């Protein structure tokens, strides 16, 4: 059974997404719509990380349930964001960040899909329940990044 391996990979990718969301929230403190929603979505990923760690025990995988997700430089990044908020350049940086978030969330979504496939083959109902709970939120994180790219790119690129 390689389900433990899949859980470990998922733990890694969810944690990476949580950290990326947290970083985006800090870096774009002055883009309030991004800042607040990114923080909310970080909570989802953190919750997923904790659930994966909890589940890992049953598969002999030891994973941290509450690893640090906030960068040590968060305060500094927020400070910088508020200072450069008057310039148009951060809007291009934001597009790059959203693009990266979209890729990370897509990766997480695929990892959940793999886990769900494995859980079905192994007839592991508890694991399948976990994927049903978390996978939709990964997709919503991805769609959010996509939607914000679509909404913000015209002004960033054409003016």
């Amino acid at each position: 059974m390689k389900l433990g391996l899949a859980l470990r990979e998922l733990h890694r990718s969810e944690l990476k997404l949580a950290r990326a969301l947290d970083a985006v929230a800090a870096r774009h403190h002055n883009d309030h719509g991004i800042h607040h929603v990114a923080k909310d979505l970080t909570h989802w990923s953190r919750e997923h990380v904790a659930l994966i760690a909890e589940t890992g025990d049953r598969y002999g995988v030891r994973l941290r349930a509450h690893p640090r997700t906030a960068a040590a430089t968060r305060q500094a990044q927020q400070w910088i964001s508020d200072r450069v908020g008057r310039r148009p350049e951060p809007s291009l940086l934001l597009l790059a960040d959203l693009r990266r978030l979209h890729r990370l969330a897509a990766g997480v979504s695929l990892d959940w899909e793999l886990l769900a496939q494995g859980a079905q083959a192994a007839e592991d109902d508890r694991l399948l329940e976990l994927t049903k709970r978390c996978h939709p939120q990964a997709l919503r994180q991805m769609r959010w990044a996509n939607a914000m790219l679509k909404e913000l790119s015209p002004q960033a690129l054409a003016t």
Partner: protein
Amino acid sequence: MTDRIADPWGERTPYGAAQQWPSRVDTYLVDELIPDDVDRWVQSAAVLHSNGDALDIAVKDGRMVGVRGREHDRVNRGRVDPKDLFGWQANASPDRLTTPLIRSNGRLVQTDWDTAMSAVVKMSKQLLDDFGPSALGFYTSGQLFLEEYYTLGVIAHGAIGTNHVDGNTRLCTATAAEALKESFGCDGQPGSYNDVDHADVIALYGHNVAETQTVLWMRMLDRLHGGDPPAIVCVDPRRTPVAQHATVHLAPLPGTNVALMNGLLHEIIENGWVDDDYVEAHAVGFEELRKRVAEFPPERAAHICDVSAADIRDAARLLGNAQRLLSTVLQGFYQSHQATAAAVQVNNIHIIRGMLGRPGCGVLQMNGQPTAENTRECGADGDLAGFRNWSNDSHVGELAELWNIDVSQIPHYAPPTHAMQMFRYAEQGTLRLLWVSATNPAVSLPELHRIRSILAQERLFLVVQDIFLTETAELADVVLPAAAWGEKTGTFTNVDRTVHLSEKAVEPPGQARPDLDIFLDYARRMDFRDRDGERLPPWTDPESAFAAWQRCSSGRPCDYTGLSYEKLRGDSGIQWPCNAENPDGTERLYADGRFWAAPDYCEAYGKDLITGAPLEPTEYRAMNPDGKAIIKAAEYIPAHEVPSDKYPLVLITGRTVYHFHTRTKTGRVPELVAAAPDVWVELAEVDARRLGVTEGDVVTVTTPRGSVVAKARITAVRPGVLFLPFHYGYWDVDDAKRNHQRAANELTLTDWDPASKQPIFKTAAARVSLDPAATPRRQVL
């Protein structure tokens, strides 16, 4: 007539269930005039709230001398709100703007129309050449007329092709519109005021109707005093007049509305108070809701909201057993955390109980401003005209046909830009011309020091069109003096889709001009043309603009084709849709469970209530192929700014019955100024005692963004919560002395609901301290 300042609601005219609301004609004339002295009565309706009370303006010797309610109108049956009884006097205020102003050497100086408009046109053309249409933005109002909004929408979306058009309706009614789109696929008020006559339970969610729509409250009060009165469920952190009349009053912690609604829905579903046949036949999404609210037994909701679980059960029992349930929703939900998600749960109660489209069974997702509904219909508020769907190419194609322009000229590559994002673009310097009409963002938007700094930028060309030199106008590069209500003709539509005609009663002062004329003058000077080289827009006056709008509305839910100015000169306003099929208008929408939600017809495909991401057309089609009502569940998410050791209280802002918006008008009316002369802060007795504050003390309210100095009022607001009225700005005080410590929005945070983009004014962490200067004997806490 009673003293309507002391008693805003006047005398009772009780009536029983299913009876007609008796009329009561309210009149106010100055100088002890009697009705026989009046030269002319000119038909209009109220513009100091969203209720749409029909009234006549009294004219004598070419000036306004009073108002009288229209006895046979379906909305008010003769009654007039105290603001409207006295508020018309602001029109004749000596400090009206009477000439255009232009900034010269840093100061605003008087000029003529030609100079002012030429400056605006020159800047517009230069920006269009250098940067394209996205450098221009328009921020309008909830107080102009339908004809003006449609004209502005055509100019901005069509002739210029910018995506940046919104109204301050974003602050008052954006969530109402969004919640209706989410649940029914389309904007459009399901209910009718007449539902008050029939309901056996009326539930008011974050809606202090007694102060925001006094005439609607009079109707409810009259039911409460008559036979077979309805039960009232009130959700409000303050003990408002509505709460005092409530059978059950729930006062949740600000920011927890979704948890409360999920708790109520949990009880309704758990107890089997669901109309299964209706849900099966007319809705999608019930299973998801059932799963979501299963997580919210009343104890959990009670814990999150800090209310009693027994009260949640009692409220749910009333909602679940009502035979004719009327629900109304306003800013306590719309301007709070998770605004759309919470408002949608109210719709969900009606869908799962099958309580739509029948007498007494209605939802009223309220508006704040008199003509907010028209901003929504006409595409001046971040929607496309006629409730058309920006992500449906055939809808955009219809507009291109109507306006005779290329479809690519109408921006539809992304959702129309909402106001807060427009200000962000201005802050970043990519939106370079902002044209503000009939509103006052320098007082009404959140985090005012930020807003002032954006509006004051050298690189932003700010045009302000208004009737007074507002706090915003003081920052403008060009100020355009507008004619006020009563000085121009047009139509507008209230909360329950009732259309009224408002005719010109007197001449505008000086060189002030109707907003419609100003917009059209701009279009002519810009020489906007359609595909055939004809003028765009082609119309020239209110009635021809109305006719153009009728063509635009044809076949859409907000169908005006059966109306005309002549027809609106009758006894009563008329509810849309009004067309060949419904020549007398339509009382209630969604009778027999038929909705405007079909994928090809709907106004919107909906959004993720948490992230705000729009659904793709294919997703919507798969979810709702048959155009049923959409039940949308939502998870609860804690507020973005919660109390801390440093800021232990929650600040909410709101209204008083005596003022409207930023007091531009009501602050110039002696009776209303005397009734509420200056800002105050309400706090609960337990908090006051802890802080050593007594009634009337001058205190400082502080959040991470600023401070407001106000007199303390100790009221029955829930402990832990502060209330500040948001009306007070700086035009009528010595600015230097008040040091930007008067407007509530100095304190609010920049945050908005991800779905409706409505700013959040009702969750900010705050602290209160006694003002050391004003109360030197006491220690500062």
